[in-house]
């Protein structure tokens, strides 16, 4: 069973005690990505790529694995999961990230 289907069935209530995995095990982890924590956000960080020096500190410190490290070590925020904590804004040594509404 794929992670996606394992989660979808539970959310829809499409399960019986016989179809659930034994003793609440999760058989195809990780399944947490099925829940998009981006909906928690009140404000969102926006990266000014032109200022980014590719130090990767924001990628290291993001608690939610919501900053993607690209091939050339530039970074991109994954707004599906970003909770808007603002740590990236705080640790960026060149202030390339700013918090905006949304």
């Amino acid at each position, binding site marked *: 069973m794929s992670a996606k289907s*394992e*989660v979808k069935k*539970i959310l829809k209530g499409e399960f019986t005690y016989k179809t659930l995995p034994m003793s*609440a095990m*999760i058989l195809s*982890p*990780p*399944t*947490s*990505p*099925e*829940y*998009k*924590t981006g909906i*928690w956000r009140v404000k969102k960080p926006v990266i000014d790529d032109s200022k980014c020096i590719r*130090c*990767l*500190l924001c*990628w*290291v*410190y*993001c*608690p*939610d*694995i*919501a900053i993607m*490290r690209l091939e050339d*070590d530039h970074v991109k925020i*994954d707004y599906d*999961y970003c*909770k*808007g*904590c*603002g*740590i990236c*804004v*705080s*640790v960026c040594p060149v202030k390339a990230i700013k918090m905006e509404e949304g």
Partner: protein
Amino acid sequence: MSELKYFKTVKEIPREDRFAKGHRLCAGCGAAIAMKLAMKAVRGPTVVVNATGCVEVATTCYPYSAWAVPYVHVAFENTAAVASGVIEANRILNKKRGQKLYDVIAIAGDGGTFDIGLQALSGALERGHNLLYICYDNEAYMNTGIQRSGATPLGAATTTSPAGTVIPGKPQRKKDLIGIAVAHRIPYAATASIAYPIDYMNKIRKALEIEGPKVIHVLTPCVPGWRYSPSDTIKLARLAVETRYFPVYEVENGRVKITIKVDRPKPVEEFLKLQRRFAHLLKPENAHILETLKKSLEENWERLVKLEESGVII
């Protein structure tokens, strides 16, 4: 396993995540950072054994799991005991039937380590299992709503040690976990801070390479518990070290080495003033408590410096 590389810069940190996005830890959670980085520091097949607590509840609520490695949760106080069983089973099954050996990392909060979990940890350390035990310390029983623990520092306000007019904050000092660990004569114990990720991750790698029980005590600021703005997590984790509030050192075969040197410490008030759990301590009527706290931090630092200089085996 191939020749293990220690990180020199953040660029060398592996891209692969074994701790997945979508977990439900708070925005700005220090423990989340500690878990993510720990899972990037592993050296091969790894199994995580975890105590009930913030990490467990927020990362493994059925049907969601943030762990790409085998993960075992049983109860609150027995992480080290469960891990002992897993390690010995793996070892004996490897011997009897060729099961592949894996690293076992036990992860528990300060609640599940300093207090209720201390017995199980002590037993596991004494028995000498090949176990890496990581305690993520947010300095209170955070998952149940910010109650004081044996890791809560002197004077801190929690829901069971509130900043009252008669008793302003926790009257007792924080336990010395590394001291307790080292008293079991284990080969390696260390503190770490998530604001020094290279130091933290290299300590994990170093520990995994050592045979026997190892303990890493990592400070993980907590947004609702310490009461600060979520973007300050790393700032606080750094100030904790820079003020000597949380010394970062290691004890290898009884020999102390301070790995993050703090020659010119910042005043601890700079760390305290950012957190509402210490707001009452900065008031004049509680100055004596603040002094006691500062004195104890100074004494602790001096102790570590002297131990390092003298090279005495503890």
